[in-house]
C-alpha cells in the first residue's frame, strides 16, 4: 500500500498526550459524552420496565425494575470507544454483570455461543457470549453514581466496553441466546461484525 499523502500544513494540536495503551488507533479523547442514536430517545417508565433473558422460544428469566435492582451490584471504571472516533477515559458504571445474571438463572455456564441484545426502538446488536462473561460486560443502570439519563441509554444499557460502543446497546430489554450468529442493526449496515477498537474493526472487512 502506498504511503498516505501528507496533508500540507496539518499539525497535531493535541494538548495532552494520552498514553498509547489507552487510546486505540484513529481515536481521540473527548471530555464530553456525545449522543449517537438512530432514532428518538424512548421514554420508559420504571414501573413498565422489564428485562429478560431468552433462549430459543422460551424466557429463561425476567425481572421487573425492583427485582433487577435487588441483584448483586458491581461498579466498573473503564474507557469507552465510539466508532465515530471519540474515546472517553475513566467512565464509571454500576449495574449487574452478565455473570451474575447467569448465576441468578442458576446456569453454571452460558447455554449458547452468541447473544443478540434487543433494545427499545427496535435496535439490536450481536455479541459473542465469550465477550460477555468473566466480568467483561454488565447491564448498567448507573453512570457516575446517578441513574443513566435516557439519552445515554437509561434506565438500563448493555456495557461491553472492550468493543466499539455501538455494541453497548442503549435501552436494552432482552438478551437472546443464539446457537448460530445473526447480525444486529449496524452489523447489517456495513459495520464490523465484531468491532474490536484495538484492531480498528470499524467496518466490514476491516
Amino acid at each position, binding site marked *: 500500500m502506498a504511503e498516505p499523502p501528507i496533508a*500540507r500544513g*496539518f499539525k*497535531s494540536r493535541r494538548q495532552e498526550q494520552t498514553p498509547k495503551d489507552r487510546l486505540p488507533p484513529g481515536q481521540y479523547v473527548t471530555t464530553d459524552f456525545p449522543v449517537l442514536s438512530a432514532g428518538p430517545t424512548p421514554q420508559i417508565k420504571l414501573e413498565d420496565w422489564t428485562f429478560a433473558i431468552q433462549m430459543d422460544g422460551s424466557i429463561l428469566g425476567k425481572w421487573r425494575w425492583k427485582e433487577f435492582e435487588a441483584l448483586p451490584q458491581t461498579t466498573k471504571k473503564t474507557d469507552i470507544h465510539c466508532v465515530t472516533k471519540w474515546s472517553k477515559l475513566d467512565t464509571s458504571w454500576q449495574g449487574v454483570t452478565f455473570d451474575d445474571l447467569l448465576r441468578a438463572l442458576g446456569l453454571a455456564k452460558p447455554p449458547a455461543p452468541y447473544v443478540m441484545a434487543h433494545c427499545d426502538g427496535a435496535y439490536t446488536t450481536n455479541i459473542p457470549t465469550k465477550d460477555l462473561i468473566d466480568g467483561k460486560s454488565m447491564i448498567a443502570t448507573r453512570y457516575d453514581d446517578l441513574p443513566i439519563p435516557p439519552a445515554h441509554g437509561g434506565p438500563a444499557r448493555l456495557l461491553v466496553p472492550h468493543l466499539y460502543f455501538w455494541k453497548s446497546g442503549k435501552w436494552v430489554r432482552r438478551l437472546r441466546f443464539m446457537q448460530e450468529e445473526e447480525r444486529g442493526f449496524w452489523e447489517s449496515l456495513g459495520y464490523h461484525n465484531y468491532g474490536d477498537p484495538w484492531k480498528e474493526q470499524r467496518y*466490514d472487512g476491516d
Partner: protein
Amino acid sequence: MIKTGSSTVRRLVWQVAEVRALVQETYRVRSILLNVNGWPGHLPGQHVDLRLTADGGYQAQRSYSIASPPEDKFVTLTVEHVDNGEVSPYLVGEVRPGDQFELRGPIGGYFVWTAAMGGPLVLIAGGSGITPLMAMLRHRDRQNSPAVARLMYSSRSLEDIIYREELDTMVHRDANLCVIHALTRKQPEGWIGYRRRIDKALLAKTCFPPEERPNIFVCGPTPLVESVSSLLVELGHDPHAIRTERFGPSGGYIP
C-alpha cells in the same frame, strides 16, 4: 470483494482525495469539493471518514457527512469551524486546491433517503446538521423527484444559514418544496420568519400529519435532535419513521 454471510461487501479502503475547489458558505463554514479517483458512489445521507497525515506521520481521523448528491462529479464535504478543534480549523482555514488527504466510505445505510423512497419527506436541521439533508435535497432536485418535501432549518442568525441562496433557488423553481427558516439568536430587521427554536407548535403546523406517513430525518446538535424527535413522537409520528443523527461540540459527526 469479500463474502460475509449472504451479502457481498466491499472493503472500505483509504482513497486519496484531492481538493478541487472551495466554497465559503458562511463566515465559519466552508465546503470542500474533492476528486476521489474510483469513488464507488454513495447514497444521500451517508458519510465518510477523513484522515489527515501530518509531516512526521501523526494522523487524525474524523467523520463528515457528504453534502453532494450521488449525481455530482465531486464529493463535497461541508465543514464548520469548531473552536479549539484539531481537524476542522485546518479544513476550514488552511486547505487549498491541490491539497491531498484520504477518505474512506461511503458509510452508513440508515440515515438515507433516495427518490425511490418517495414522499412526503420532512427534513429538520440545526446548524451544520443541514449537510446530509442537503445531499437529499440536491438528489431530489437532480432527479426531478415529485416527492413533496419540507425543510425546517434552525440557524442562529441569517449569516449562519448554510446554502441559503441555493435553497432559495430550489424553492423558487419547485412548488413541491417548502423551506422554513427559524433564526434563534438574531434576526434581521423586518424578518417575518420564525424567531424561536423549533418547538411543538411549529412542528404541528409545518410537519405533515402522521396519517400521511412522512419519512422524517433530523440532524443537528444533540439538544435540538433530542427535543425535536421527542416532540414528533408526542405528535403521533411513528418512532421508526424518525431517523436521527446527533452531534456535539467535540464528538459525533461533523465536529
